[in-house]
């Protein structure tokens, strides 16, 4: 059913280089959270710390009552079985074909027969639209397919927590929409806790239930989607709206002089854009973690920007049986399942 991750006072540095300091947040069970941040702010490091691949300097990460930071190696391997992780480029094993990659965790950790393994693996590959590509090697396929294969592999052990590193990097906007829709539908199906790390603002605005922003070596804000999207806090508002006016500059941060000059020149922050409706499941059924549009704003007396939550409760329309027919550069043309015409 998904488990919560409770992060308290987490600090990480490499040698003398501080990555982030005192990060405290709770990823609510079964909900989708997005961690946003400019490149190089340590989003990937955060994700790897959450699975215990990197040891933080301070703080705790509590899952099901166990603190990951102090766990022994053996117990850590146990806790990791709760996780599915999709790394930035899929992290497939280069020497195995896609099917063996997806079947790998089942072969390692279960006593299932080969035919059961085959059934589950093919099911997950179909879920991400990869049927017919079982025999391809990771080196022969496009980045988008590698990501989806990595996702299928992360899913075979029915994880309670799914961590996803930049699903949208290197994908065109259309495929980004497809993969985002896939996350929403997956979350509805498996109820796992999702954490998506990204710097894609569009993903952050429409997909998650919660948003966090890592900026300047700390967690600037974490909370429900509507809280951040209606926030007047300069950093949050600048990043979520991709504006040049604000504290974030081309380099790490604008220096004080520049900020003062900006203030003196009376430059006005542009008004907040309307909050887009959240992406819905493709079959229209609500997810467990989904909250009605505008609920947070009403509960907290915040007036959302005019025009918010307008438009239908959208989802990318992925018609039945077409996941597998999505165009793909490398193999799409050769995959013909007969149902296309």
């Amino acid at each position, binding site marked *: 059913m998904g488990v919560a991750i409770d992060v308290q006072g987490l600090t990480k540095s490499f040698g003398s280089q501080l990555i982030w300091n005192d990060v405290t947040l709770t990823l609510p069970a079964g909900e989708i959270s997005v961690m946003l941040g400019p490149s190089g702010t340590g989003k990937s490091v955060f994700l790897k710390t959450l699975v215990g691949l990197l040891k933080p300097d301070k703080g705790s990460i509590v899952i099901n009552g166990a603190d990951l930071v102090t766990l022994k190696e053996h117990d850590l*391997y146990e806790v*990791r*079985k709760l*996780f599915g*992780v999709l790394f930035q480029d899929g992290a497939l094993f280069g020497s195995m074909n896609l099917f063996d990659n997806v079947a790998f965790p089942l072969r390692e950790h279960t006593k299932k027969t080969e035919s059961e393994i085959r059934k589950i693996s093919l099911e997950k590959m179909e879920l991400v639209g990869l049927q017919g590509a079982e025999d391809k090697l990771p080196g022969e396929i496009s980045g988008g397919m590698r990501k989806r294969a990595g996702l299928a592999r992360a899913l075979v052990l029915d994880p309670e927590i799914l961590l996803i590193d930049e699903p949208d990097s290197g994908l065109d906007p259309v495929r980004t929409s497809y993969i985002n829709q896939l996350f929403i539908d997956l979350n509805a199906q498996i109820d796992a806790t999702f954490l998506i790390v990204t710097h894609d603002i569009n993903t952050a605005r429409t997909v998650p239930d919660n948003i966090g922003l890592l900026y300047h070596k700390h967690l600037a804000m974490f909370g429900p989607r509507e809280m951040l999207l209606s926030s007047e806090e300069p950093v949050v508002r600048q990043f979520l709206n991709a504006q040049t006016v604000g504290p974030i500059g081309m380099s790490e941060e604008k220096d004080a002089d520049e900020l003062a000059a900006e203030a003196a020149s009376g430059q006005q922050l542009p008004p907040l854009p309307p909050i887009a409706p959240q992406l819905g499941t493709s079959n229209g059924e609500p997810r467990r973690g989904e909250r009605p549009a505008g609920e947070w704003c009403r509960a907290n007396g915040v007036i959302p920007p005019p025009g918010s939550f307008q438009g239908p409760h959208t989802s990318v329309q992925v018609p039945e049986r077409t996941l597998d027919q999505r165009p793909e550069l490398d193999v799409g043309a050769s995959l013909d399942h007969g149902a296309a015409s």
Partner: protein
Amino acid sequence: MNVLVSPLKQAGAFFALFLDVMRALPKRPFQTKEFIQQCWFIASVTIVPTALVSIPFGAVIALQLGTLTRQLGAQSFTGAASVLAVVREASPIVTALLVAGAGGSAICADLGSRKIREEIDAMEVLGISPIQRLVVPRVLACMLVAVLLNGLVSVVGVAGGYFFNVVIQGGTPGAYLASFTALAQLADLWTSEIKALLFGLVAAVVASYKGLTAGGGPKGVGDAVNQSVVITFMLLFVINFVVSAIYFQVVPQKV
């Protein structure tokens, strides 16, 4: 400060990996398939260059010794001296060169590229120890191949020496062969193989360490390979010296 601390830290981390490998050695299931694949892979990148290096190496030794023994008037010992030189020193050195330069660099490049593709991280997240799964079979394979290579170099080197001495320099075959056992003894061969075993171990662990700690993209892997070869060379030559020194202390020599 940093100049001192950083190499010490590296040495510490290297030693930690070494201990991890030792601890993972008895763990089941043993990765037989990976072990065999790695043996084949390491052998395939080292055998041909080894043979090609050891022929001229044996010839040079035969040439030097042939001339030297004639100058000293000890032609009858040409065979004995060349066997001794080849088995005791030349073949471990050639093995070290090839194990570090070809075997170690291949291991390091392989693990390094897996590291930067995050395959290693993925493996750990899937609850599988990369040390047990990847490093242990490579270390064992490298040790086995090193021992075999050392044997190969000895044979090819001695054969090269024979060819050079008998065919080119016109020595007598009988005298060459008969003098084999005059100075050399079985302990020489054992020592030589023990050296090779240690070379394989150290080369594989250094290469694995460098590969698993590679970072910073493809260039990082290149740097890691480079450093791994240089470090391995230095360590192997030190080990070669130490084992030889111990050998002369422990094993009584023929007179």
